[in-house]
């Protein structure tokens, strides 16, 4: 089960880490869902066309980043409302992907290609004598380990580089940047582009692990990733914990289906329900903490 949870966690974690950049820059990024979907589709199309996983991932990241660039252009240069443009990104993915898919392959449904191979397993050759530990520590494909490395990487960027400092300052107070002669708009664009790259990776991890693209393959993961940012107290390690929590919940729900009879259709709503409950509990805790702080002052 923990093995499963780690696999489920990977796309969530990567998207959440990308969303952290926009969140810290003061942009509530509701476009994660659409960006991830573009990444998932791009990765499968790229891999099918070239037969190379790496080229596929580059296509996935490219598709999501391009869409993020559009999003950034509209919200910064054209000053479009950030939420409405975010919805536009989500709808754009949902509308344009079936169009391209029918144009290329004559179907807007499931895309499965023989050319799409398995993501390599990093530690396939390592042998430990306890089978469970073997799976949990060494049995995953590359993306799981890369996602964990990414946590460290994102932490270093955000807290150990001038770029990270500026980004965090931007979210707190725009004038901190303008007073130093830096453009807040530029840093906001960087943040949105980074979230695009991350969502491209997350989408690729999602579709390439299965080896297929399914319509609406993200199934709300972009929204859950957004919530993990809050639950993780806007910190990479917190996001790791929150993403792991959601992944465990999801694999529990999957396991529960075998034990008690829950209709499959209802199960589709469970991730959203868990997310909203977690979000409300988080805000209650935060609210009480803020109030206590105010009392002691």
């Amino acid at each position, binding site marked *: 089960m923990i093995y499963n949870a780690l696999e489920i966690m990977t796309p969530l974690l990567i998207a959440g880490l990308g969303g952290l950049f926009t969140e810290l820059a*003061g*942009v*509530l990024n*509701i476009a994660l869902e659409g960006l991830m979907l573009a990444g998932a589709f791009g990765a499968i199309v790229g891999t099918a066309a070239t037969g190379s996983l790496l080229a596929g991932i580059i296509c996935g990241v490219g598709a999501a980043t391009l869409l993020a660039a*559009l999003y950034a252009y*509209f*919200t910064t240069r*054209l*000053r*479009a*409302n*950030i*939420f*409405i*443009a975010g*919805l*536009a*990104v989500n*709808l*754009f993915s*949902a*509308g*344009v992907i*079936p*169009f391209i898919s*029918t*144009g290329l392959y*004559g179907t*807007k449904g499931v895309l499965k290609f023989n050319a799409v191979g398995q993501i390599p397993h990093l530690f396939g050759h390592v042998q430990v004598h306890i089978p469970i530990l073997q799976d949990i520590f060494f049995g995953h494909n590359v993306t799981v380990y890369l996602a964990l490395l990414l946590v460290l990487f994102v932490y270093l960027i955000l807290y150990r580089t001038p770029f990270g400092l500026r980004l965090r300052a931007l979210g707190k107070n*725009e004038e901190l940047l*303008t007073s130093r002669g830096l*453009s*807040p*708009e530029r840093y*906001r664009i960087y943040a949105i582009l980074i979230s695009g790259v991350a969502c491209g990776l997350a989408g690729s991890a999602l579709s390439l692990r299965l080896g297929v693209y399914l319509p609406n393959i993200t199934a*709300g993961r972009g*929204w859950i990733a*957004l*919530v993990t940012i*809050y639950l993780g107290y806007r910190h990479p390690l917190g996001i790791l914990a929150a993403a792991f929590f959601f992944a465990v919940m999801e694999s529990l729900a999957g396991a529960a289906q075998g034990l008690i009879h829950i*209709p499959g*259709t*209802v*199960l*589709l*709503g*469970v991730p*959203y*329900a868990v*997310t*909203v409950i977690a*979000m*409300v509990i988080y*805000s*209650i805790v*935060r*609210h009480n903490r803020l109030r206590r702080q105010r009392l002691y002052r």
Partner: protein
Amino acid sequence: MVRRRSPYGNLTATFIAIGAALVITFILLSVGSKNPGKAIGAFFLGPFSNTYYLGNMLNSASALILTGLGVGLAFRAGVFNLGGEGQVYVSALATTMILLRLPALPGVVGVVIGVLAGCAAGALLAGLSGLFKQLWGTDELITSFLISAALVPTVDYLIIGPLRNQKSNLLTTKEIASQYHLLRLLPPSHLNLTLIIAVLSALLLFFILYYTVWGYELRLTGLNREFSRYGGISIGVYTVMPMVLSGALHGAAGAFTVMGTYHASISGFTSGYGWNGIAVALIGRNNPLGVIPAALIFTYLAAGANAALLHTDFTFELGAIIQAVIFFFITAQIWVPRLFPSRKAEVDA
């Protein structure tokens, strides 16, 4: 702060958005059709080709007026209701269930009960998000979306499973009694009394927003929360109430769709009402009177897209693409900053 820039576009942006949507539609139709001229002709003229299409277009518009009013009201108060999809769907099922369980009552009484049931269901769902926001500062934009997304599959399950009418080939509930059906205005199309009620609701809401203290305070809260609080306005009221009313309007849309159009709940039958309501509210610039022409324009685009798709080689989600383009452009300020560069724009750049 970009976080909560006011979502009112200007009129130029509205025209640019609709123009951009048309351009993209033409490009896609040219790519997707062997005979683009015919497809584009169908796009413009299809919705007017007979009373059936025309009536159905007006009927879709009337539901969108209601959801558009709901979205716009929340926007005006500075809160976001992204849960329209679920609110309409859940309320539609609630109305159907109540009407199926009622003993034989006079039609008017049943209709009133049906509408109240729908409004109550929608108000409850959206109100929950408003309440969370008021009590603990939980972001209503995210919770309203999540609550809605969590409930849609459950409603799907209920319609497909326990509540399904086994005699029908469709995935639908039983049909409500005929005395609760609303009067059809333009048979054989689905156009019914909903249109009149929706227009009256828009007028009423306009009056409330612009000619009552309540409306004034609501708009002021939407413009500047801190200022309003300083001025002695109870912010909490204008966080929860607009969400409750917004949900109730979505609920009304669900209830009227059942009583006026389908007479039952069909799996996925209100899909798109919530998102389209957002588009309509934005085109109508969140003004209740603006929502009426906005709903007409939007349904015309959607109906035209459907008519044109009959002439393409493959079907695709043209509606979603049109909507995405409108959403991208509707709040963008394309010409204004260039023609009149303000001091602030220079500082930013």
